[in-house]
């Protein structure tokens, strides 16, 4: 069971994540979009979308910091443990709250505005439900355990297990001892990755950074060959040369 949860499932999810993106990129460029609905509703979006996205940047950055940077490295750089803890809890809570506020407003917007409700797909609803669950678990861990509770040093367990997956040395025993909320959040995280390529989240990979240096006006030559010249209706009417159609 432990192997299934902490070894098989992560690898399965990562496989789906990679293969799903390859499939979507090759077969559904047309569906690869933010699927903007700002045209239909502007007032709520103007507040909630930047809140959500900036919060998400903070949260993603926090996860990268916590999971990818070994505690030994920050220790060697001379960052005391309590300073790290303070930074991670305060920044995590702040950006997490931005994310929560943005998400709540975005979901409210989806269901309050009839115009938006009509264009909301099933996949959007699944995505919103999943995001909500993940955020609730994550905030419970950050605020409930680390801020108000005694604190849990995930850097010695979860982060090591997480990095181990990429070295192909998963240490399941590190996860079995973790608190339930962390376990659920970690499992949910991998399932979330598996869901990713099939949702509008693919737009994340299209963050248009190349815009910063490309020339303003883009010229492009026609790729497909041109169709055969057709006689104009006037030529057909006048029975001139080239008026024989098909």
């Amino acid at each position, binding site marked *: 069971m432990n192997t299934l949860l902490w070894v098989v499932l992560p690898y399965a999810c990562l496989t789906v994540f990679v293969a799903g993106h390859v499939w979507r990129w*090759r*077969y*559904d*460029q*047309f*569906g*690869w*979009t*933010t*699927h*903007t*609905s*700002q*045209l*239909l*509703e*502007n007032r709520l*979006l*103007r*507040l909630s*979308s*930047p809140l*959500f*996205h*900036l919060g998400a940047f903070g949260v993603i950055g926090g996860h990268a910091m916590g999971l990818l940077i070994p505690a030994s490295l920050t220790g060697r750089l001379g960052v005391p443990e309590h300073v790290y803890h303070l930074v991670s809890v305060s920044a995590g809570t702040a950006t997490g709250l931005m994310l929560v506020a943005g998400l709540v407003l975005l979901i409210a917007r989806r269901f309050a505005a*009839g*115009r938006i*409700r*009509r*264009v909301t797909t099933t996949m959007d609803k699944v995505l919103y439900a999943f995001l909500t669950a993940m955020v609730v678990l994550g905030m419970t861990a950050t605020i409930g355990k680390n801020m108000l509770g005694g604190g849990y040093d995930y850097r010695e367990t979860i982060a090591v297990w997480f990095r181990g997956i990429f070295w192909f040395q998963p240490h399941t025993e590190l996860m079995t001892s973790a608190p339930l909320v962390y376990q659920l959040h970690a499992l949910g995280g991998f399932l979330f990755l598996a869901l990713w390529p099939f949702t509008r989240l693919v*737009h994340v990979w*299209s963050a*248009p*950074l*190349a*815009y*910063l240096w*490309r020339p*303003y*006006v*883009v*010229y*492009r*030559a*026609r790729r*497909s*060959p*041109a*169709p*055969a*010249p*057709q006689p*104009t*209706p*006037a*030529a057909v009417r006048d029975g001139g040369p080239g008026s024989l159609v098909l």
Partner: protein
Amino acid sequence: MRIRAQVAMVMNLDKCIGCHTCSVTCKQTWTNREGTEYVWFNNVETKPGIGYPKHYEDQDRWHGGWKLDRKGRLVLRSGGRGKRLSRIFANPDLPSIDDYYEPATFDKDILVSAPGGLKDTPVKRPHSALTGEPMAVTWGANWEDSLGGQSGQDDPNLARMATKVKLEFEKTFMFHLPRICEHCLNPACVSACPSGAMYKREEDGIVLVDQDRCRGWRMCVSACPYKKVYVNHATGKAEKCTFCFPRIEAGQPTICSETCVGRLRYLGIVLYDEDAVLAAASVEDEKDLLEAQRAAFVDPYDPAVGEAGLPAEWIAAAQASPVWKLISEYRIALPLHPEYRTMPMVWYVPPLSPVLDATGAAGRDDTDADDIFHTIRDLRIPVEYLAELFTAGDVPVVTGVLMKLAAMRSYMRARTLDGTVAQELLDSIGMTAGQVEAMYRLLAIAKYDERYVVPAAHAKDAAALEAQAATHGDCPVGGSDEDFRRADGRRGLHLNPLRSRS
């Protein structure tokens, strides 16, 4: 010098009767689909009027087009690259659907499914195409048709005029302005597209959206000062006037030109120097933009054209181009809002009719050139208004064009009725008798093949395409209502018409 060809259009506004045939045939061809109900690649608005979408010409509000920064460099009015990306999560300049209008459909089924023997005739009611709920129709793409809505008062062009205007009934003048994408030489939409999905075609200058590469950042919509790029709210991608490129490639005119009842559209090639575009768009005084753009065009008889590697049939088409003649030889066509600095390529012959109406109203003879000249000089309001639209407020340029049109009328009248040549009229506008008569022919009686001079794209490609079509059958039109799938299974934009959902 890099010479490129551009397919361009001129519309003679005197002949537009506002019948909307162009809009309707365009809509039936391109935008009668779910997600594009509110989209009119071609629309006809009544001027003065606030237009479609509402107040689109008010760039203090929408920040469309280009401007010069303090150092005189050309920058997008909505901000540079960094600023644009910082606003990607919520575009502050994007019009909402209510700035266009809420599209409606009708429950027509009730007309055939109502039970017999009713005392009252069944009535179909409007339903929102966005929510399906019953709605009141309170605005449309042409709500102010023929000044019906009386919102001409709020026209942003009137607000900019030096003369303070109140459109009293007796001073009212109006004309129709058909608008499509301008296919600009310096397109703001292309420049604002974060994904690089929008592009200008090298061969014919047509500006298109790559549906596979558009990611729905919607910056093109706000950057276009003419608001001629639209969001398809069903696909989440941008769409715009295609200049009917499949027809142009086959040597046929666009569908709006083809079906124009007034025969007021002219379609042809204009050659331009790509290297001169940036400098032309960057001239300091807005009133110099018109001349700068004309100077960026290349005379099709220039020997340099032969060395540019253009196909011979394209050079021949450029030499026969009615658009080139109206813009550069007769100099009676003017660009719409040159002050946006996008170098638009759909130009207009300004309407003389508001002036003629006023000439008659003032008790003068509207067939007499002198009387018309006097009226043009007296009539500050319509002429200043036309200048706001077509010359960045440069009144003498508009006056000059109107005088040419008036002189042409009087000259031809004398020529036809009395058989005399009014040399003093020719002298007053600086044109030869041959030029005026050729101009008259082009404006009044030019046939289909003279109005639309479109070279077919390189014929040598044709066989390859036919082979491709035979083996694939990649056709986005017709078929099922399901998503369009290309022959290799990839999803794509389908152009199936919208069916009634109720």
